[in-house]
Structures are given as C-alpha cells and as structure tokens.
C-alpha cells in the first residue's frame, strides 16, 4: 500500500487491493505514513487457495465494483486533515483496583492477556531514576503506528511486565535498537508470526541478574525483559493482534538471551560487532522458529566439531523459508539466523581451530538443497508469478541458481547472515538454529545512569 500512499500525496487516486482480514493492516500502514481514508478494494476470502476460475468470478462479481467505487465514489471518510491528539506522558488515565486495572488494560488491548502489574506513577518513577534521559524525552518513534517512545511509557510497559527498575537503561537501548530502520520493525506484522527477542552482552548480564546458562530464557530477569519488549511492541509500536499483527497461529512470549561470556571460547557477540568487552549492549533480534536442539556427539570416525558443522548445515535447510532466505541485494528479503551453541559444543569447535567466521564460511558453503526444492517452494509456497530465472535477472537470486534440477545450490545469502551465540546449559552438547524473516539484528550500547540509586 506504500505506493498508493505516495501516489495519493501527489494527487493520484489509488485503490489498494487487500484480501479478507488484511484491510485493517493496510489502513494502519497508511495512517502511520500520515494518510487517512485510504481507498481499499477487498477481495473476498483467501485467494491463495482459490482456483483460477473462482478468482476471476470473485473479481468480476465483487472486487471490480469495489475498485470502481473506490476511485469514483465519495470519500469513505469525511474527516479532513487533522492534527493528531497528543497527551501528557505522565497523565493518570484510569483509577481502579488491581483487577479493574487489568480489565481496563485488557479492554484497551494494552496487555498480553496475562495479569499485569499496574503502572502507577510511583512505580514508574522508580524506573526513571535509573536513566539520565528526561522522562518525556523522545527516545524513538516506533513504526508501524509511528508513536513516540519516551521514558514514561517505556517504564510503564516495564512495570507491567514485572521488570526491576534497574533494567530501565537496557529497555531504552532496546527501543533504540528496534527503532533502527535496519531492524525493520515496520514489516513484522506478517502472518508468519515474527517474534522479536533480545540478546544481552557485557557486564549488564550479571549486574541485572540476566541468565545465560541452562534454561536461560525461563530464568532470572530474562522472562520479564522479554515480556516488556512484547508489550512495548504492542503499546508503543502499535502492533495489535488481528489488526496489524497477523501471526496466523499467534505468538509465543518474547524472550531474552544472554551470551555466557565466561564459557565462550571466542570474542563475545558485541565485541565481534565493534563494541568493547566492558561495554554492555542489547541486540534486537527476531525469529519465526524455535524447536529441536540436536545433540552433538564425537565418535571414532568424526569429531564433535565436524558433527556440529554437519548438523548445523542440515538444520539451516530445515527451518527457514528457503525461497526467501536465499534472496540478496538491497531489495532482497531481510533475514537473520541465530545459532545457539551450548558451551561444550562451542569449545569443541574452537578446540578444532574454528573461529566464528570459519564456522560461518563452512555453513555458507555447505547449507544446500537441490534446485528443484527451491523452485517448488517458490512456486507453491509463495504463489509467485515470477520464476527463479526472473529473480536472477532482477539480482535477487545469484547466477549460480541457473543450474539443473538436481544440482545442490547454496541457500544462505552470505556468511554474515549467521549470528553465533554461546549460551545454555554448560553441561549439555546441544545446538539450536533460529531463523528470523523480515528482520536484521541491531546492537545498541546500554547507557547506565551517571548516578543511579543504590541497589
């Protein structure tokens, strides 16, 4: 719908074609771009499963009239251009008991349907003491709703999630990270169910009680931080379930990882990305997958390091949407792979002489599928009008894809799409591959308050 918005801005009436269930997201995106009353022509039903004759019939009997009415009929909304209504960030908006506050927040879609801690002025002010930012300073403007995040509303969400006040600087940095264009928050509303999560590095991990070892996402400060991220995405970024947050089967809880830097045999993630070891950072990440963590065994005929590399090469072809993962270039699809290595596996790889970069290079070369599999996925998994050959011509796929049906082609767009994090149970030999479509990782430094309250 973005071309329609730009065309409308220069006076060309435009109709956006949606399918049932997606009209609200089209309007939401247009509104975030500063445009109200977008013309919509809604196709009835899920076009993906309709045969060609039914598509033609629905267009002729339903959709075409909607297009004509959209272009020539009176405007759907008579609302003239109007300034957005603003309000003080610290305004008390509701008074009631714990249960009544929870019902009110639920009715406004401000919660995740679990009970929240009521964000009272007193509790929020405890969080504000842990940052040097002014309480109403605009930290970022978050898409899709293009609403401002300020310490007041960031802290309100953190209180609701059950975070501790000293986590405030981490959450401010997390907001800066998801606001970065490179992260691509604007595009996570997809039916795929993209789940943002955080990775924390540096001294903040221990200082804030963030777990990096066994069962890490379920321990310590991690669950509340993940929950706060999820609430910020709903309440400040404006992602509402079923309106513009369209995950077909919903979303698990957002989670938080931390690297176990004591057990990591390489430079930790943030140092790899240009930060000092003594810096604390938070990286905004995303995943569409969780799941099976294969165990890695060394045997008489194969080292644990070699087994790990071969397992990971296979795992990388199992979980992602390969037709999208393989894309590249400025207009190619955004992807991030996060590989979680339990410390014993990381140490086996390092002991065999592998750096993180060497692991990436190996996986880039060895994660392959037969060409016909990629073609099948593109044709039947995406209903694309264009072929792999067309995508090669547009620079989205590489020329190495112009091969025979049974030739194995590389599926990773580049080695750098892989992010390696050492974490999890220090006594287990497991690995896990997470694939996040639509997002890129963005790392921000956590700026502690110059004079925080004593803990």
């Amino acid at each position, binding site marked *: 719908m973005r071309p329609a918005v730009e065309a409308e801005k220069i006076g060309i009436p435009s109709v956006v074609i949606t399918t049932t269930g997606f009209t609200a997201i089209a309007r939401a995106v247009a509104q975030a771009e500063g445009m109200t009353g977008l013309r919509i022509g809604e196709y009835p039903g899920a076009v*993906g499963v309709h045969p060609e004759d039914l598509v033609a019939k629905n267009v002729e009997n339903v959709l075409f009239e909607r297009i004509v009415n959209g272009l020539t009929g009176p405007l759907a909304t008579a609302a003239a251009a109007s300034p957005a209504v603003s309000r003080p960030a610290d305004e008390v908006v509701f008074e009631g008991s714990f249960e009544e506050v929870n019902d*009110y927040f639920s009715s406004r879609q401000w919660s995740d349907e679990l009970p929240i801690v009521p964000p009272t002025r007193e509790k929020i002010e405890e969080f504000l003491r842990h940052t040097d930012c002014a309480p109403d300073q605009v930290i970022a403007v978050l898409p899709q709703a293009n609403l401002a995040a300020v310490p007041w509303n960031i802290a309100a969400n953190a209180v609701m999630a059950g975070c501790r006040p000293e986590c405030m600087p981490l959450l401010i940095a997390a907001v800066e990270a998801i606001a970065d264009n490179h992260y691509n928050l604007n595009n996570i509303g997809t039916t795929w169910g993209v789940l943002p999560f955080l990775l924390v590095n540096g001294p903040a991990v221990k200082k804030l009680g963030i777990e990096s070892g066994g069962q890490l996402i379920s321990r310590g400060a991690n669950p509340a931080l993940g929950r706060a991220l999820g609430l910020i995405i709903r309440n400040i970024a404006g992602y509402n379930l079923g309106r513009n947050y369209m995950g077909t089967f919903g979303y698990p809880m957002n989670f938080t990882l931390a690297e176990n830097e004591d057990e990591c045999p390489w430079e930790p993630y943030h140092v790899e990305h240009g930060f000092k070891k003594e810096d604390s950072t938070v990286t905004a990440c995303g995943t569409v997958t969780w799941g099976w963590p294969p165990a890695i065994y060394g045997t008489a005929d194969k080292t644990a390091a070699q087994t790990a590399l071969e397992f990971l090469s296979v795992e990388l072809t199992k979980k992602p949407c390969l037709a999208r993962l393989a894309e590249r270039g400025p207009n190619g699809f955004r992807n991030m792979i996060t590989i979680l290595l339990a410390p014993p596996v990381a140490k086996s790889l390092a002991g065999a002489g592998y750096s993180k970069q060497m692991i990436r290079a190996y996986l880039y070369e060895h994660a392959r599928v037969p060409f016909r599999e990629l073609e099948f996925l593109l044709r039947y998994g995406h209903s694309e009008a264009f072929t792999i050959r067309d995508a090669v011509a547009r620079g989205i796929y590489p020329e190495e894809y112009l091969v025979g049906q049974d030739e194995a082609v590389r599926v990773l767009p580049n080695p750098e799409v892989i992010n390696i994090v050492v974490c999890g149970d220090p006594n287990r030999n497991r690995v896990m591959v997470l694939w996040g479509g639509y997002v890129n990782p963005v790392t921000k430094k956590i700026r502690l308050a110059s004079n925080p309250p004593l803990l």
Partner: protein
Amino acid sequence: MLHQAEHSSQFEPGRFSSMIAGEREKGTSVKEIVGVISPAGLPLGAARNISPPLDTLDGKTIGEVYNNHFKGELMFQTYRRLFSEKFRGVKVIPYHEFPIVYVGGDPASQKKIAREIAAIAREKGCDALITGNGG
C-alpha cells in the same frame, strides 16, 4: 482523560474482576484503588486525507502496480477485460511497466521504490492506480 472503574462508560468489568467476585462476597478481598499511567505511544504530527475521487473512469489512464503476490497477475487480467467492457477509452499501463513492489528491503528502500512508482505514474499520465495484492 481519567476513567474511573465505577463511572466509566468505556469500562466493563471483565474476566479479571470476575476472578475475585467470590472473594469479595466472602469479604476476603481488599480493594486498593490505584491510578495508572498509559503504556501507549504518544501521537506525533498530523494526518492528511486522500485525494479527491475521479468523476468517471471513461477516457482515464489507470496504472497497475504489483508486488508479485497472491495471484495478482490473474486479477489484473480480469480488471483489464472489465475496464474495456464497461468504460469507454480506458487506457491501462500494465504492471510490468512499473517497478515491482516487493516484501524485501527495509523501510527506506520500500519508501524509495514507492516514490519512484508515484513519479512514474505521473510521468505516464496516470489518473489512477490499482496496487496489489495484500494479504
């Protein structure tokens, strides 16, 4: 605007309140009233409305913009036939004469392509655009 549980027309007691109804009847629940701050983002800037509608489609030039998704190529074919049957002198600029709008890229690259498309539409004399497919 402040809403109070007892008086707000926007507030209906829901499942959280009903959880403790039994406790209240037994007199074992203490109702502490708290005031809360909104967790929502703050609106910025102003919105603008869409451009005025056309008086008729007769004799107009209509541009097609496609994102290569959801069987749009079938739909655009049908629109072309129906335009020629129902309106006089409609000219269609087919989607292959515009850049493809794609799910890839990031907000900056997507906006750049959207602006290029709008500029091409003007250059080609389009009176209206149909863009799809969403879902």
